[in-house]
């Protein structure tokens, strides 16, 4: 008995000794992000940081469907599990007003982040409230919605001839929403198991909203005035109605059962040879060029979101910025990491690894723009992006958007005008509830 007690004590003290010594050597920063390729690239970048400084970087991930819930569950509990979070742009309001993010305004000004990063990315990934000059994040993964298409279908001389005969102009990459709709209609042939277009329709979170935004913004419409919270007459303007009607028209040319589609399904539309064109975030395009995941990789091309009838051209913003969690025990270390992260050479490496940098110099470089078939479209898009509301109650606004818009787009119930009028009413009531308007 005595023997075993001594050995247990010895064991415990040994473990403690090792534990403390390991702890002293290994400083570690944990970054939380969703489970996708860019997180792996960030881990690789983190490994470089560890080589330089000895501080270990661990990128922890969770599936997209779970990302928001898990991050906010941790924030709400004031947990210190994560030192940094690469959070969605819509979270800025909730996370800053909730005190979950460290205020990075001084950091941003001191390190000239505003000059280094593309303007729109700082505006949407970092600033809250809009136009306030207060910053909560550093743009990390730039992303927006673009389009992939089947080059072989577009370049087929017979198709070109038939298209010209029917529509009176050359079949080419669409420059406007009208052309996009014509081409979708042209390639929509259910009896050949070929369909015109794949668009976002999922209403569980922000899928449908991202899709509709592409039409809405390019039609010159807005979701509302982000400074005054006025929505009536803006989100249900004539332009918005026309944009939504166009989106509904596009839905008619989607493959059968396209009622729950987001980024996974829209990439499948290309890999399975179902659709001629498919909307998706740029972040999901690398797998379309990979022949092991896309049998049509050689025949896949890319283009930026087309312009509306008045020449406006915008796209819905995806992507994330990196923020320091207020409850982290390593805020100092986290700041040091951010300092390293925004350096031009780090951003260059980030882009080389596959990350979508927001660094102006890198984006504008020839090397970046020619690195992949979609980088040029990405570069063009990142300077004309717009985003959803970033207020703390954004999820309620999304829910109301889904409740009003989905039945019209997918099930053809009611009219676009009715749906948007009702949405304006819902949003107004929500802003009143939170005291943003009188």
């Amino acid at each position, binding site marked *: 008995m005595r023997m075993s007690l001594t050995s247990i004590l010895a064991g415990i003290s040994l473990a403690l000794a090792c534990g403390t010594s390991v702890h002293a050597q290994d400083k570690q920063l944990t970054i939380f992000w969703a489970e996708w390729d860019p997180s792996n690239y960030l881990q690789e970048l983190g490994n470089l940081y560890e080589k330089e400084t000895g501080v270990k970087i661990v990128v922890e991930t969770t599936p997209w469907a779970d990302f*928001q*819930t898990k991050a*906010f*569950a941790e*924030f*709400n509990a004031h947990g210190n599990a994560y030192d940094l979070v690469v959070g969605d742009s819509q979270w800025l309001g*909730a996370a800053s*007003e*909730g*005190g979950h993010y460290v205020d990075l305004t001084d950091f941003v000004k001191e390190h000239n982040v505003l000059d280094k990063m593309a303007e729109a990315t700082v505006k949407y990934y970092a600033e809250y409230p809009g136009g306030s000059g207060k910053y909560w994040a550093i743009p990390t993964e730039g992303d927006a919605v673009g389009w992939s298409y089947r080059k072989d279908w577009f370049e087929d001389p017979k198709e070109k001839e038939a298209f010209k005969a029917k529509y009176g102009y050359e079949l080419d990459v669409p420059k406007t929403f009208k052309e996009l709709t014509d081409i979708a209609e042209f390639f929509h042939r*259910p009896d050949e*198991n070929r369909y015109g277009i794949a668009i976002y*329709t*999922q*209403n*569980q*979170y922000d899928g449908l909203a991202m899709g509709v935004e592409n039409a809405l913004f390019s039609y010159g419409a807005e979701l509302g005035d982000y400074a005054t919270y006025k929505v009536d007459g803006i989100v249900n303007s004539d332009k918005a109605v026309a944009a939504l009607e166009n989106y509904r028209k596009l839905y008619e040319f989607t*493959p*059968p*059962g*396209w*009622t*729950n589609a987001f980024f996974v399904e829209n990439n499948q539309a290309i890999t*399975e040879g*179902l659709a001629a064109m498919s909307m998706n975030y740029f972040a999901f395009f690398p797998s379309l060029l990979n022949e092991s995941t896309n049998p049509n990789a050689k025949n896949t091309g890319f283009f930026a979101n087309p312009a509306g009838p008045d020449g406006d051209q915008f796209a819905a913003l995806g992507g994330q910025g990196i923020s320091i969690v207020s409850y982290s025990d390593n805020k100092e270390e986290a700041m040091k990491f951010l300092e390293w992260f925004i350096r031009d050479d780090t951003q260059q490496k980030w882009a080389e690894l596959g990350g979508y940098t927001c660094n102006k110099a890198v984006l504008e470089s020839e090397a970046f723009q020619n690195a992949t078939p979609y980088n040029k479209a990405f570069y063009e898009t990142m300077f004309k992006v717009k985003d959803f509301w970033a207020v*703390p*109650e954004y*999820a*309620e606004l*999304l*829910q109301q958007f889904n*409740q009003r818009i*989905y*039945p019209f787009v*997918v*099930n053809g119930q009611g009219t676009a005008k009715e749906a948007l009028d009702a949405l304006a009413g819902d949003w107004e009531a929500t802003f009143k509830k939170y005291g943003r308007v009188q």
Partner: protein
Amino acid sequence: MATAVMTTLDPKSRAASRGMSDLAIRNLFIIPTILFLIVFNIFPLAYSLGYSFTDFRASTNAPANFVGLQNYRDLLNDPYIWNNFAVTAKYVIISVVGQVVVGFGTAMLLNRDIPFKGLITTLLLLPMMLSMAVVGLFWKLLYDPSWGVINWALGLGKFEWLGDPRMALYAVAITDIWMWAPFVMLLSLAGLSAVPKHLYEAAAIDRAGPFYTFFRITLPLVAPILMIAIIFRTMEAFKTFDLAYVLSTQPSTEVIAIRLYKMAFQEWQTGRSCALAYIVLIMVLAITNIYVKYLNKVKER
């Protein structure tokens, strides 16, 4: 009688030899359980009742304000919430009736001497051993209009099981029936094999027809155990989340648990979602009570 059991501790047992009294042992077993229940069940239940009268949001640092019955009033005036309840009720009825018919029918078929009866029963039980989310993902592929095996097997062309708002709820219910009918079958089988054979013999001697035998002998004797299966399945169907969430996003399949999840963990309207959870709890309690009353009546017969 219970105390009689509690107070007799075998004087030769190890516990007695260590000098522990009966009371100490009883406390040792019961107190941790009760503490666990209080900490993880009763306390949160009471706490969330308090939240349901506030505008508390877990995602912000703003203090919770008391709003009285505002949350309940808003919820009960929200046509979308009523729609969620209507969808849930429809789903419960379709799914439970389907499970009872399929499950009880299969049990009747299996309740005779057939070769490989044990093996067949085991194989039929497989669906309910799978995870709900996995079943949902599989059936999503099976239902797919472009490459799904169901349309191919039934020759339905491009029929949109999940895309058609009128069909989607049935499609989800069919999956649920596939998964949980074996549960009803298992309980029914236990009930059926307990029916005394001499009753059937007596019925045969009296030349009773098969329908008469079924409705006057089989069903009344299996009814109590079938009622238990129905209670379980109704409560489960009322709380359905995974299957419907994974399979479909049609508003016509948004059952109340999905709306509750979105309200609580996407919108972080903690106070309001607590109120909704209480409304659901009261409904489930009420329905279960009716069933239990009926079950007792059936047992008395």
